[in-house]
């Protein structure tokens, strides 16, 4: 199994580096202007108050958009970081096994004495490692940038928010992984359905505080259990994180059950 992890990471080395560069660039651009924005926060909050509550909830979960926690939540952790890491996790989830199967290189691997279970486990651990590397880089860089620009949020809370954003991204990635492991849908459908699960869930979860009947369907989706401003202020109920772990475990078990005995796609 170790060679699968090592060589999968080796194959994705340059992609990992560019994802890290991209996310660092995003965090840098977002936070470097914080001192300027902070100096105009009173004026900006006034303008922000004009926006209807329902619309506000699409891009933040706090009423004070320009406080340290409000800014960090709305600009990085509420949507963008989970979205960026989610795109990475979904594309990985759909391609780790899906691309190998589509290109038929999976036959080269399974022609060796390695079980499908180990192949699947090796690929999923490699995917986990990629998301953790990129997620970890973004969390560390965010914490450093916050210090540099004087954005005062406890480092521990930044780490916790980053960890949960990464966990949320992983829960989206395993959905794509499961759909490709099932074999019938294919990579494109894996990406599409996982993206719909992510974005649909985000919209439902965002609107559910204003539209009461959306509260129940919103509970199916991961964004319902992710509250960045609560995380950044240390008020997050970590029992919510069980949802992410449950989704990840359930999708991996379904992937394993489906993949261990099914026909590989032909060349």
């Amino acid at each position, binding site marked *: 199994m170790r060679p699968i992890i090592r*060589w999968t990471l080796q194959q994705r080395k340059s992609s990992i580096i560019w994802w890290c560069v991209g996310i660092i660039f995003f965090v840098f651009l977002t936070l470097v202007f914080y001192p300027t924005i902070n100096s105009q926060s009173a004026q900006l909050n006034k303008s922000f108050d004009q926006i209807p509550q329902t619309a506000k909830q699409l891009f933040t979960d706090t009423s004070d958009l320009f406080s340290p926690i409000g800014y960090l939540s709305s600009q990085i952790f509420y949507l963008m970081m989970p979205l960026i890491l989610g795109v990475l996790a979904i594309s990985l989830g759909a391609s780790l096994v899906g691309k190998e199967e589509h290109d038929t290189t999976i036959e080269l*691997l*399974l022609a*060796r004495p390695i079980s499908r279970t180990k192949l699947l486990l090796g690929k999923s651990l490699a995917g986990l490692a990629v998301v953790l590397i990129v997620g970890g880089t973004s969390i560390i860089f965010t914490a450093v940038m916050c210090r540099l620009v004087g954005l005062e949020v406890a480092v521990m809370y930044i780490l916790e928010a980053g960890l949960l954003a990464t966990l949320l991204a992983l829960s989206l990635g395993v959905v794509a992984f499961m759909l490709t492991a099932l074999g019938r849908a294919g990579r494109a459908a894996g990406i599409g359905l996982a993206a719909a699960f992510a974005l649909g869930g985000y919209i439902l979860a965002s609107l559910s505080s204003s539209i009461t009947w959306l509260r129940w369907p919103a509970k199916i989706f991961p964004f319902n259990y992710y509250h960045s401003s609560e995380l950044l202020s240390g008020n997050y109920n970590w029992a919510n994180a069980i949802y992410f772990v449950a989704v990840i475990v359930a999708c991996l078990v379904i992937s394993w059950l489906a993949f261990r*005995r099914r026909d590989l796609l032909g060349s």
Partner: protein
Amino acid sequence: MADVAIFSEGLSKRYPGTDFLALNKLDLSIKTGEVYGFLGPNGAGKSTTIRLLMNFIQPTAGHAQILGQNIVTDSVAIKRQVGYLAGEIALYPKMTGRQFLDYMSDLQPPKNKAYVNQLAKRFQANLNVKIRDLSKGNRQKIGLLQAFMHQPKILILDEPTSGLDPLMQEEFFKLLKETTAAGGSVFVSSHNLAEVQRMCDRVGFIREGRLITEQSMAEIAAAAARTFTITFEGAPPRAELAAIPGAKVKLSGSGQVNVSLRGELSPLFKVLAKHKVAGIDQQELNLEEEFLHFYRAKDSKK
């Protein structure tokens, strides 16, 4: 069963969403040290058989064993003894040949590390170039190296010489001989009939998922049409020759005919005895002709 390398009984496969069997009750028994050729037109079931043996797809019915182990339940153990080459080999284009072989070696450490380099040298494989920059023939060499590098007891090869130049084909045949001399067995699927003729001990003909017949090369040679090029002093007795049962006659020059004869030779020599013959040559067995004859005969029976 001790000397049986590959065995199958009633092995069948129906793909989901289809109402026909892609492979229909295949019974195979390939001995240790044997090179078995699997011949058939496109879609006959050759690749399905290989993919079943490799446990890439699951049988609908029947069972098969490789070296006495079940292809489904003991697949991992079987792969320790098997070298596999796919028909349209897909490699990792961004890796160099060396990186790719290192990857395969990590998954299945070779018994003798130096052997990999020896093979690369024999096949003049350039391992330092990215696979995407290699020609088809050079990619095929890498494919052969990964199949042979761990010195497997069983080789399952689909179109192994595809893209190789004649020198490399020669090298491949030598390697195959060495493998079988060391007790290895080979299951080879091919469209290249000259290649099959060259390397196989026995051939199975498959069509529409059914194994129609199996024959050793010696049996094929005995039953095959023998072709003679006969030069007469004067006009060839074409009508007499054409009247011989099982004979096909073709003029090939002034005073020269090609006679292709299936069955008894004595009627031919009776005709020749009545005429002045300047020369007679027998051509080598043409498996391609046999292959076409075989399938045409089946077609006409339909």
